[in-house]
């Protein structure tokens, strides 16, 4: 090393201040998004499976739209648009949230803890990575289903509601997955929780209107918050943009997002409680 280099290095040896939460969160979420898209096994199922299910259901259950009680002037595929988005987001957000468990397992979590990184940025950076994928999924699904009859009658405002709902839902599910990962440190534990989320989805109006359900199943579906969220979002697709229905969809998904964040925060805090 030359003397000049040495002097330059010495002059540059300044201890910089810890950057703001937003900057750190952005850097960590960029990392999360990159890492997520570099693992096709994590994101391909979140795109392929919901579309596959929609294709199978819309062809086998297309006549369901003729049953009295089914929303009028609505194709079954149109009815499914919101369900496809919700399913896809669930697949993606679980995988994305579970990446925090991988960080814990491979020690990267500790690397972050030993750096001047604000603690919430570690969690938010991971969950925010899921937002981008959720928004991407919502737009992709709308774009793919639209030409086949899955028209969103609410237009751009309607699509915007679907995108924001997807982001909120990704926060809720991603938070739940990240929280479970932080608590157990085991990716398998998070994967094991996956079917429960889908049971919750199946017991909602995701695939059939609650008006056509009966007995205990119908009662559960009618009182399932996912039904309220899905119905509010579905209104944007099959009827048109409506502020009240949009508020219902975004309100429910927003509350779920807050619950997910709360759970993740408490669990992650529990894990780093030992650290200063």
């Amino acid at each position: 090393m030359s003397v000049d280099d040495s002097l330059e290095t010495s002059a540059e040896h300044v201890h910089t201040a810890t950057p703001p939460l937003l900057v750190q969160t952005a850097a960590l979420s960029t990392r999360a998004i990159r890492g997520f898209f570099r693992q096709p096994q994590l994101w391909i199922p979140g795109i392929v499976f919901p579309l596959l299910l929609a294709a199978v259901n819309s062809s086998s259950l297309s006549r369901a739209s003729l049953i009295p009680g089914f929303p009028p002037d609505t194709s079954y595929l149109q009815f499914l648009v919101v369900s496809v988005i919700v399913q896809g987001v669930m697949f993606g957000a679980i995988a994305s949230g579970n990446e925090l468990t991988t960080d814990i397992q491979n020690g990267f979590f500790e690397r972050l803890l030993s750096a001047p990184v604000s603690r919430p940025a570690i969690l938010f950076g991971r969950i925010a990575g899921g937002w981008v994928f959720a928004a991407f999924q919502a737009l992709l699904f709308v774009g793919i289903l639209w030409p086949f009859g899955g028209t969103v009658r609410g237009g751009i405002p309607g699509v915007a509601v679907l995108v924001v709902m997807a982001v909120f839902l990704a926060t809720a599910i991603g938070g739940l997955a990240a929280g479970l990962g932080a608590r157990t440190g085991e990716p398998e534990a998070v994967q094991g929780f996956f079917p429960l989320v889908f049971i919750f989805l199946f017991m909602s109006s995701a695939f059939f209107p609650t008006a056509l359900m009966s007995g205990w199943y119908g009662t559960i579906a009618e009182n399932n918050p996912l039904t309220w969220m899905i119905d509010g979002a579905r209104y944007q697709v099959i009827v048109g943009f409506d502020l009240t229905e949009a508020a219902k969809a975004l309100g429910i998904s927003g509350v779920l997002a807050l619950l997910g964040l709360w759970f993740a925060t408490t669990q992650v805090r529990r894990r780093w409680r030992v650290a200063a």
Partner: protein
Amino acid sequence: MTRAAVQPIEAEALVRCFDEIRAVDGIDIVVDKGEIFGFLGPNGAGKSTAVRVLTTLLKPTSGTARVAGYDVESQADKVREVIGVALQDAAIDPLMTGKELLRLQATLHGIPRRLAARRAKDLLERVGLTEAAPRLVGQYSGGMRRRLDLALALMNEPDVLFLDEPTTGLDPMSRRNLWEEVRRLNREYGTTVFLTTQYLEEADQLANRIAIIDHGKIVREGDPAALKKSVGSPTLRVDVADEQQAIAEQTLQAFGEERPSRVGRVSIGLEGGAERMADVVRALDEAGIVIEHMELDSPSLDDVFADATGRRLEGAADAEEPAE
């Protein structure tokens, strides 16, 4: 107290318990500026726990520790700003490239973009990873990961660099390359290094000063030469014909206390060390003894460890940690 006057590391009566186990049991450490301080001990001795306390990953159960003048408990954020840490197993995201990781590290430390780019370039050159930098870390060998880990730890030009068993699992060549890099950054940049290791040779080669830890307690501390000297005189072994053994023993008694040996060999603790070798040879020659083989073994750090703990460290690490 000015920043220049503070000790890089000071710990007093530091204790860290896990339930009933006292992993770190009242240790005192003072590391001077520009020093490579070796923390030597077997697996489970408490080395990594001590490092985790000093790097703010664990809170001490009792006692105090200051790094670069900042308290590890009450000023943990400040500590994290001025340290570089390379923990065991090179915790590196395999889905990122070396370049991306360095950029992320720079952002998290608030290093301006242009300066970060310059430092990344310099660090990659220093650790010999310039060509590999655009590749995903998942494709790196163990040695390359360790070198990248070192570069990441140096990104913020830390006041104190913590290396927790940096060469465990590496092949001898990678191990030596890493040693050279640590020496170089200490020599050229004056970086204070706190190094934990279970390898005697590593501690001997790198550290200016060593603390031997066992069962959470520091059992010996000092510079390697002084520690070895403290164990006693070097062992002189002289192989002679069986019929000359008695006279050889009698001749060598003048140079030191006899030590246990096999038939055909006379061993003594040579008082005065290597400087007296010429006298020994002369005396044996004058006594008409034919020397078949002669060797002088200086006390090793393993002897120091054995003297302090009654156990040997030599070979234990290799037996437990297969090379890469």
